[in-house]
């Protein structure tokens, strides 16, 4: 019988079945077990942080060792390929422009050195503002309750259903050129809802916790209970929520930029891709122009994802596996 065959499958390392024989641990598993002692030594967390730091390092080292003035139009010959690669006209890329140039002769390396940290900056700033708003509103709603809670809850529930891109496109189209900071502020208006809901839920359940009751018995002020007793225990959630928000913010920012609605004069990854699409880089096979910024965005997102997964494992030991 087919069914029998599958149920009697051999479990590697435990011929006598689980619980009956010592689990045979490989050297690798023993090494991983050590990690239970210090949850922060999580490989996902370390790799994720490493990837993000590499973007930051690109910005810092690039400014030290490369001329960022090359972002301007006409810095070099247009449509140059990266080093050692031939472009349509048979020109071999040179070290003058290691990653090539775009149609208007802007140096791609310089664009990335300036643009990649800019994209990260917009994401982090928008997320920071969104989180701060979320913490404030979430705590107020959860702790004060009553009418205040109703207002905040309805507001965030309504806001969560509005697609941010729709509003942002209209807004940016109306205002035209904006700065990075203004863009971050605009995006922040759409990333405070989920932290608000998350924190409100946590505060509601924490409000009945024994130690909060104890603090009330100790005559603690509301501020003390919220920020000294509750907030420290929320740190893992806040971290996770923050990272998730950074991802959302960057996606939104890049989305706007690729539509040509971001800052017009400041290089960002999205803007580079917009220019590439607009100038027919896809048809002319100028793959480095749109390919390399996309790769950098992928690195950023994978880094953020890994940090988020790592943080999950730090705060929830059940997710840690040998």
């Amino acid at each position: 019988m087919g069914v029998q065959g599958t149920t009697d499958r051999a479990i590697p390392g435990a011929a006598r079945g689980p619980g009956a024989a010592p689990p045979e641990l490989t050297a690798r598993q023993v090494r991983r077990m050590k990690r239970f002692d210090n949850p922060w030594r999580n490989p996902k967390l370390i790799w994720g942080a490493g990837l993000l730091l590499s973007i930051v390092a690109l910005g810092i080292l690039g400014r030290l060792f490369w001329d960022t003035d090359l972002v301007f139009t006409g810095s070099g010959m247009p449509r140059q390929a990266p080093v050692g690669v031939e472009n349509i006209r048979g020109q071999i890329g040179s070290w003058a422009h290691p990653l090539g140039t775009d149609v208007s002769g802007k140096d791609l390396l310089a664009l990335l050195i300036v643009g990649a940290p800019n994209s990260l900056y917009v994401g982090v700033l928008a997320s920071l503002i969104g989180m701060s708003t979320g913490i404030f509103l979430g705590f107020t709603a959860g702790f004060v309750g009553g009418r205040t809670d109703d207002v905040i809850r309805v507001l965030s529930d309504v806001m969560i259903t509005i697609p941010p891109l729709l509003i942002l496109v209209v807004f940016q189209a109306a205002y035209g050129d904006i700065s990075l900071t203004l863009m971050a502020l605009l995006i922040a208006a759409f990333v405070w809802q989920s932290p608000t809901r998350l924190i409100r839920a946590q505060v509601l359940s924490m409000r009945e916790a024994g130690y909060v009751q104890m603090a009330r018995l100790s005559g603690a002020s509301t501020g003390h209970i919220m920020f000294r007793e509750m907030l420290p225990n929320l740190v893992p959630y806040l971290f996770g929520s923050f990272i998730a928000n950074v991802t959302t913010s960057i996606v939104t920012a890049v989305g706007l930029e690729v539509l040509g609605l971001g800052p017009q004069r400041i290089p960002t990854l999205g803007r580079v891709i917009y220019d590439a699409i607009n100038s027919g880089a896809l048809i002319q096979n100028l793959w480095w122009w749109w390919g390399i910024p996309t790769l950098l965005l992928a690195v950023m997102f994978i880094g953020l994802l890994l940090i988020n997964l790592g943080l999950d494992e730090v705060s929830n030991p059940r997710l840690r596996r040998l």
Partner: protein
Amino acid sequence: MTVLDIRNISIDFPTSKGVVHAVSDVSLSVPQGRRIGFIGESGSGKTTTALAAMRMLAAPGFVSEGEIHLNALGDTDILALSEEEMRRVRLRKISYIPQGAMNSLNPVMRVETQIWDGILAHEAGVTQAELQRRSDAVLEGVGLDPKIVGRLYPHELSGGMKQRVCIAIGVCLQPDLIIADEPTSALDVITQRHVMQTLREVQARIGAGLILIGHDMGLMAQSVDDLAVLRLGELVEFGPVRQILENPQHPYTKELISSVPLVGGESFLDPTPAEVPKGFTTQDGTPLLELKGVGKTYGAVTALHPMSFTLDGAVPKIISIVGQSGSGKSTMGSLMLGFSPPSTGEVLFKGQDINRIGKADQLTFRKQVQAVFQDPYACFNPFYRVDHALKFPFKRFGLAQSEDHVQEAMEEACRAVGLDPALVLSRYPHQLSGGQRQRLIVARALMLSPNLLIADEPVSMVDASLRSSILKNIHDLKDRHGISIVYITHDLATAYHVSDYVMVLYKGHVVEAGPPKDVIGDPQHTYTRLLIDSIPWPEVGRDWGSADDARAALEELGRIGGTPQTVYRGDIPGFTLRQG
């Protein structure tokens, strides 16, 4: 004939800090039809040993040595079975009745469907009519009406009914052995008696062996034939329950038996000193605490019917409020702490309505009324070291003169409750045991020296052997520090010993009140009598009575349900109680 043979088993849990020996070298056998109790404190390995027989140890635990034989399997060692063979053994040969019935039933399946599930997992080709007949039979066997209960979902059942459904599932295939892991720990004593009697009856009917895991000596005395005492993974004593209770050999068993407080037994408290410190007094005789017609309703549900009492704090007293879950006793505690306002009446502390205290006096009120809560695990903020819970209120109430003074006061309070300050104060909560934490909370109350302490089930989540010492600490607060105490509990035996006055609450009514010797020693009200009768006595001779008695008593209680009359059993000076 033995149904289960455990031979020299040891169970190890490999961790990153080395191997933990959860159970070492335990041998014992369960004869057919006999009931064996496993008793021990948390971490003693009682559940682990039983789970090893089911091969359900939590990873990475494993049986490192020894053999487990099941009679039904002949010479085969349970540990040598494959996972599929083991699956066929579970429920059919060994069944397991879990601790929390509320979490063990599938919330989206009807009760009878869950029983059919168990049958179908072991027997192919059973017809629907046959399934129905068998599920009806087992449900009837545990005293539930199959026509009604079988069609219900778990959330429509009470805790006791759910636990009986779990028993029904456990016995539906007539196993050789039933393992019941603290089946009644989440139930109140009246329901506990009913469920245990059901379990005993069913087990006797199908002639299975029974392993009952628990920590309550009284429950064991009433339920099992043989008792195995486990401590730190070792079997320290094994024998017939009468022999163990009447003539314990091992010092640990002796300690375990002597730590059970008994109604009418010897007191575990120190004698009251001749000179009791003065409590709170005023010239005009304002009482310390006064409840004037205080009642509480939550929507349509009345948690507490209006009642009044005055507690004069001049001579400190312990007032016990006794009742089962849902009786309104914790509501009273939260009303007295000012955590929730009463629906009717007012709570006066030193003549002042505690729900109308201005911001400025709030701190003074808080300083004078403190509490010890049920759950010592939740009372400490996991983010801080435990001294935060002691240090913060001390400073907040302006009692601290300097950092050194705080440290000194903390150390003194720790020593007073029998803790070594150097050992506990700089630890994080998860590094301390439940008993240590609860003592720290008592030390905290001592440091703040309030006039009134509300102790809400202070020992119900602490291991049995520590209960009396923590109650002793609380009692000392009254005797040595002049603190009046309201002791809220479901445990009549401890209330009998520590209190000066007892109120028995039932569905938000005070049904009987008076000095403990009268109320608990010689109960008059039906409900109080039922409560006392339901306590499992750690004496084999004193029988619990049959399931029919329990059913009859419950029915009688159902009749008085609505508005029971309070039975007043005498007064004590400094405390008066009135219904309404």
